[in-house]
Each structure stands twice: as structure tokens, then as C-alpha cells.
């Protein structure tokens, strides 16, 4: 079904959406402090961050529901910063769905099409197509109050994509659903996005959701984009302590660079031990080494190359995998997770190591 619903006629060279230095404050401190980013046609971009980081405000600025104090919003190269929401050609799936309670499902989905003045037959056909898309055939005459949360969610999506926008904005659309339904809807949303070829800007605070669905993730903190990249990039090369912590489970070891090879290989001094890592840093820099918990290796026999002496202090069952606490010589404590026991018993001496190429450094302090 996809290609028929695709918007045609954009120039592939122009990004779909461009934001330049967006600033916004509500009188009590800044909410957005200079956000710039671009969204490519058909891309799934996630704004990921804790509550209060400005991600929803940024989405509302794109939708036209908030006016930024400074900055520009460009859609397909056209400046839409000053346009009201109804003239933008961008549609939103609201957090609480915001279905019109006095209209049935059909009329909710048809609302935008009717405003556009389309023919009755065309509207009916499009509504049917949308109901098929979200797998709610036969629900057209139900009222929103007669639907479950997941069904309302689907109607909200159908209503927003019925207008064939090039860009769909989603504000924590799965936030109100339980875990099971949320997982199913993640796949569903991804399928809809692929089918329609629509670009999604998706707001969430759930890192799992972000990693599962996104082409790129913008990690936001305190009104700024902290890091923008593919899920893999952010996971493998976090730019800051915050980004490293927010995605995945990680050990952050405070350290100082004592040797830098120039090829990104680093030797660092941390709490009485010397550890290797990778990344761009100069001798004398204060950094944190980011070692993902599942990449901490441990064994009774000393491997070739780098290893630290340690004691296995504790092992906990954490649902499908084991989580261990290792007390390393020099006073360092590391957390490790793995499919099976680390090969040592609790209280035993062992060796700990990791692949330096998978242990990037980040600046020791995050900017305020």
C-alpha cells in the first residue's frame, strides 16, 4: 500500500525539517536553550530525555502550538516559524490521544479531510484505508469512550496520518499503555511508519523504545540536544556522561589520561590502577571511562594483555541474566551483567578486563 500514500514532489537534497537555534522560555527559566537539528524525509527521529528536558516543548514548537522566542523552523525549505498549526501541514499524535469525545471514530478520522473540503466518497475511502492501516476495521461507528486505550491510540494515529503529512509528531504516544501493549505498539508504529514512508519525530523518555524504533536519537537534557546520532553511535560513542548513563547500563570510571597514541588509543590512571580505553583526549585530561556492564569480562585465569585483579563481591539474578559486583584492586567497583555466572564464585579472586576499543571516554564533567 505504501507508495500510494507517499507524499511526492520533495527535493531529496532538502531536509524535510530544519530547526535553527530554537529558544523558548515560559518566564520561569529557559525550557529550550538553542536547539538545532534536521530531519530527513522518511526518517524516524526520537527526542529522548528525562521529564522537563524540553522535548515536548520542542515538539509543540514544530507543531506550531508554541511560538519560540528565537530561532527558525523550516519545513521542506519553507520558513513556517510564524505559521499557526492549521497551516503547517504537520500532524500530531497527542499524549492523551485527544480524540474528540463527541464524534465517533469515523468522524474523528475524517475531521481533517472534511476541513480540507474533500469529496464525501474520497473521505469515506480514506477513512476505510486508515482503519485498515491501524487494524480497526469495523470500529468506525464506535465512540472513543467505547474503545480501550490501545484502540484509542490507533485511532489517534489514523486521524493524524489521514491527512498524509510528510512529518508526523508523536508525543509519548505509548506512555499510557501497559508494558505488553507498549511492546506490540512499538512494532505496529514502526510498520505504519515504513508503510507510509512518513517521517516521525517521536518524543519519549523510554530508552528501550528509542533504541528499538529510531533511525536517529537526539538525547536531550536541560533544553539542549546533548547528542544526536544513530542508536548504535550513541551506544558505542556517547558524547557525555549523561548520554552514556541514559542509554544502556554502564560503568563510568573517573580517570586521567596519561598516554594518548594519536590513533584514539588511550592509557589512563584511575583509582590506583592503569586502564586502557579509546577516544579523542589529550594527556592530562580528566575523563570518565565508559565500560558497558555487559562488556566487563571476568575470569580466574589471567588473559594476555590488560587485566585487573578483583574479587567477586556479589551476584544477583536479574531476570534472564546475572548481575555481579566486582571489587577491583585500588578501590574501584565495577558492575557486570552476563548470560551466565562469570566463572568465579562469590568471594573468590579473579581477573577483570575489557576490550579497550569498546570502552570510550567522555568528559569527566557535563556542562551545566
Amino acid at each position, binding site marked *: 500500500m505504501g507508495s500510494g500514500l507517499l507524499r511526492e514532489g520533495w527535493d531529496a537534497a532538502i531536509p524535510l525539517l530544519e530547526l535553527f537555534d530554537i529558544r523558548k522560555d515560559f518566564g520561569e527559566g529557559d525550557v529550550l536553550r538553542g536547539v538545532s537539528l534536521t530531519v530527513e524525509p522518511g526518517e524516524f527521529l526520537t527526542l529522548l530525555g528525562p521529564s522537563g528536558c524540553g522535548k515536548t516543548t520542542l515538539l509543540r514548537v514544530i507543531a506550531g502550538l508554541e511560538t519560540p522566542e528565537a530561532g527558525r523552523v523550516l519545513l521542506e525549505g519553507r520558513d513556517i516559524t510564524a505559521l499557526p*498549526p492549521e497551516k503547517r501541514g504537520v500532524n500530531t499524535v497527542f499524549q492523551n490521544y485527544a480524540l474528540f469525545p463527541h464524534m465517533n471514530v469515523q468522524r474523528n478520522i475524517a475531521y481533517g479531510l472534511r476541513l480540507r473540503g474533500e469529496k464525501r466518497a474520497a473521505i469515506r475511502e480514506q477513512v476505510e484505508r486508515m482503519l485498515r492501516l491501524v487494524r480497526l476495521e469495523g470500529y468506525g461507528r464506535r465512540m472513543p469512550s467505547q474503545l480501550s486505550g490501545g484502540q484509542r491510540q490507533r485511532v489517534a494515529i489514523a*486521524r493524524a496520518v489521514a491527512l498524509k503529512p510528510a512529518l508526523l509528531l508523536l508525543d509519548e504516544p505509548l506512555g499510557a499503555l501497559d508494558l505488553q501493549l507498549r511492546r506490540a505498539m512499538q512494532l505496529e508504529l514502526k510498520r505504519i511508519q515504513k508503510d507510509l514512508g512518513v517521517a516521525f519525530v517521536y518524543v519519549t523518555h523510554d530508552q528501550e523504545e528509542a533504541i528499538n524504533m529510531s533511525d536517529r536519537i537526539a538525547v536531550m537534557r536541560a533544553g539542549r540536544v546533548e547528542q544526536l546520532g544513530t542508536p548504535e553511535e550513541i551506544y558505542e560513542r556517547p558524547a557525555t556522561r549523561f548520554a552514556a548513563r541514559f542509554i544502556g547500563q554502564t560503568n563510568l570510571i573517573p580517570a586521567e589520561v596519561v598516554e594518548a597514541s594519536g590513533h584514539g588509543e588511550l592509557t589512563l590512571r584511575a583509582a590506583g590502577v592503569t586502564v586502557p580505553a579509546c577516544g579523542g583526549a589529550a594527556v592530562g585530561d580528566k575523563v570518565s571511562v565508559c565500560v558497558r556492564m555487559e562488556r566487563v569480562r571476568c575470569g580466574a585465569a589471567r588473559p594476555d594483555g590488560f587485566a585487573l585483579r578483583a574479587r567477586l563481591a556479589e551476584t544477583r539474578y536479574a531476570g534472564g541474566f546475572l548481575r555481579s559486583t566486582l571489587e577491583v584492586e585500588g578501590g574501584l567497583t565495577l558492575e557486570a551483567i552476563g548470560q551466565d555466572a562469570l566463572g568465579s564464585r562469590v568471594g573468590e579472586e579473579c581477573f577483570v578486563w575489557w576490550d579497550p576499543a569498546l570502552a570510550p571516554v567522555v568528559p569527566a564533567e557535563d556542562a551545566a
Partner: protein
Amino acid sequence: MRGRGRSAWRPVILTAVLVFLYLPLALVALYSFSESKVAGVMKGFTWDWYAKLTRDGAMGQALRTSLRVAGLSCLVSVPLATLGAIGLAARQSRKARFAKLAGGVRGLVEGVTVLPVMLPEVVLGMSLMAAFSMAGARFGIWTLVTAHTTFCVPYVYLIVKSRLAGLDPQLTEAARDLGAGPARAFWDVTLPLILPAIFSGTLLAVAMSFDDVIISMFVNGAQSTTLPLKIYSSLRAGVTPEINALCTIILGVVCLAVALSQLLRNDKKRGGKPDETDNV
């Protein structure tokens, strides 16, 4: 144990209060069916007094005046109060910088709007009379309508306002997002959702206007006696069974209006802000 003792008294006290409140009303209704010419004596059962009422020209005239005043004052006060509630609700979302000042102004405007509810009716009636005579107005149906509009506005305003406050702001935003201008979004989404509150306010305003005595007494004219005023003046000749019958009818109408008004207001499930019950 103390709690249990208290709860045993509760139904007794409740009954006493209800009897105190409603027994007089019940008696009036009862006596309106009495065959006895003397009000206050129950004898047999008859519809005669109701039949007699329908033939009473002066009463019919007063009823028409009352209905006209109620209708006209609603016609003015309902749109006025509704627009006021919408306007003051919309102001909230303006520029943050002036939030404090705007909040103060809004509070003041709102206070002034609902003040007539709290003011003693004698004072309101007196001052309206003074104002009308200073303006050289002819006392009659229009002074009545103006006065009734004054005290009907706050009731409608308060009901519509509370409904608006309970409305999910994302609903109008969703309409805007789907291509509706501000006016269209209001017409398609806000208005249908606050309509029950507007009806409810209208019914309450009708009830308030229909049974008002004190303010009407100050501002009515010789040719414009409302029903309650007519009843009041006929009481000088003593309570007659016809008056009982009339009061019973008014009671019924007002009760119906208030009940309907409540029913519409309780229709809150639609379009409210999402809450805990909104789960799957």
C-alpha cells in the same frame, strides 16, 4: 465506638432537617387539592382551584409577564456570560511575562462578575431602582429584564466556566493541528462540549428569574407584575386555595428546571481531562 454512636444519629438528624425544609412545601401542595375554601383545612379532593386559576385573567397576565422576563433576560445573559467565561479562560494562555498582572486583572473581573450572587438582594434592587430612575427609564418590562439579566449572568458564568476549566486543552489543539482555524476549532470542538453547561446555566437562570420577588419589587412597573409579585400582593387578602395551587405549579416548574440543569451538568464524562479511569 464514638464514630458508631454518631452514625446512629445521622439518619435522625437528616430526617429532621428534610422535614423542616420540605414539610411546608408539601402542605402547600396538599392544601391546593382541598375542597375547603379556608386555606389550611384539608377536606376532600378537588382540581377546582387549578381550574379556577386558568380562568383568572390577572394571574394569566402575570404568568405571561414572568415568562417574558425570564425568556428575555436569558436571551441576553446566557450569551453574555458564556462569552465572558470563554474570554476569561482564553486569557490564561497569554504571554508569561505579564502573567501576574493578567492574573490579578482576571481575578478582579471575575470577582466583579460573580458579586451579584453574594450581594443582598435588597441592596441590588435598591441600587438598580435608583440607577433606572436617574437614567429616566420607564419602569416596566425592560427594567425588569435588565435587572434579571444582572443577577442571571453570574450563575451562567460560573457553570460554563467550570465546564471550560474541565475541558482538555489538547482537544482544541488537536483540531488546530488537523487544519481548523481558532474559530472553527471553537465551533467544532469547544462549543459542542460546553453546550450541556450552557443549557444547564440557562435553566438555572430561568428558575432564578421566574421566582425572584425582591429585586422585581423595586424595578417593576404598574403594567408589569410578575407572577411572584402577584402572589405576594394577593396574600394581603389572606392565603387562598388558588394561591396554594399556583405555588404548587411554580414549585413543580422550578424543580423540573433545576433537576434538568443538574442532569446536564453531571454529563461530565465527555471531553473531560483524562484521569486515572482512562486506563486500558
